[in-house]
């Protein structure tokens, strides 16, 4: 049952991400990325990593994609992206090699046997995933957690400061006649 679900999800995610990477339209890309992220949360639920799945849904599919969507408003999203792509052969060579190599590494039985873990969730066996994560997050990982919180705050402030500069001016007005690149664009 789980295996079937996994394969369905896996195929869907792969397909969606391929669309993301190879689509010429940014909106298509973004939509398929969001859908892929939602499906990845499904992967997490399958292996009972409930909390992670929830976070994936909320943060990635919710917050991050919303952020992209808002960010997109600054750009011309409907137009097809015109770009000189890197030669296909190079891309497939590199990514293909990395895929093969990673698969070889991950599927090799040698790994895992050599890893010895001391489960930090000892004595948490009776708790479900969310409770256990809460217990660990606020004990052993308290300081990283707080640091991550501070980092998010900094990032938020930085995002606001960077993006809000001259927000009230239209982009086309700001640099007309000053930047040759912009001029070229205008003429087109």
């Amino acid at each position, binding site marked *: 049952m789980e295996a079937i679900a996994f394969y369905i999800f896996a195929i869907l995610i792969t397909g969606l991400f391929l669309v993301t990477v190879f689509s010429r339209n940014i909106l298509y890309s973004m939509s398929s990325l969001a859908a892929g*992220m939602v499906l*990845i949360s499904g992967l997490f639920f399958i292996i009972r990593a409930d909390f992670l799945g929830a976070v994936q849904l909320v943060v990635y599919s919710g917050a991050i994609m919303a952020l992209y969507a808002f960010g997109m408003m600054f750009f011309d999203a409907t137009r097809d*992206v015109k770009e000189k792509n890197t030669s296909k052969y190079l891309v497939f060579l590199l990514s293909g090699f990395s895929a093969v190599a990673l698969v070889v590494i991950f599927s090799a039985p040698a790994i895992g046997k050599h890893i010895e*873990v001391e489960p930090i*969730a000892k004595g948490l066996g009776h708790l479900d995933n969310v409770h256990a994560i809460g217990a660990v997050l606020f004990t052993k990982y308290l300081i990283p957690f707080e640091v991550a919180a501070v980092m*998010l705050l900094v990032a938020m402030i930085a995002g606001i400061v960077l993006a809000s500069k001259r927000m009230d001016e239209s982009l086309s007005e700001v640099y007309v006649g000053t930047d040759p690149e912009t001029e070229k664009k205008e003429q087109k």
Partner: protein
Amino acid sequence: MTDLTTQYLILSAILFSIGLAGVLRRKNLLMLFFATEIMLNATNVAFAAISVHLGDLSGQMFALFIIAVAASEVAVGLGLLILIYKKYGTLDLDNLSIMKG
């Protein structure tokens, strides 16, 4: 419950490579960001799978922090993208070669 760890890892490897292909192929900065997100997600999948496999919550914690980092990255990165777009009117890497040595 069948053990799907290997399949998960292979999936993560494939997703990672897709992300890598995107990073290599695309020249639009926004698309590069998307590809980066894919790569981050791929690693998250691997972390979660191994964490569950070993019964150790550290992997999931790590994935959690990666998500936090990704969120921060997007916040700052998008701000920078907007600035770049304002300044140069393009997000195409081929047109952004001010760092030429």
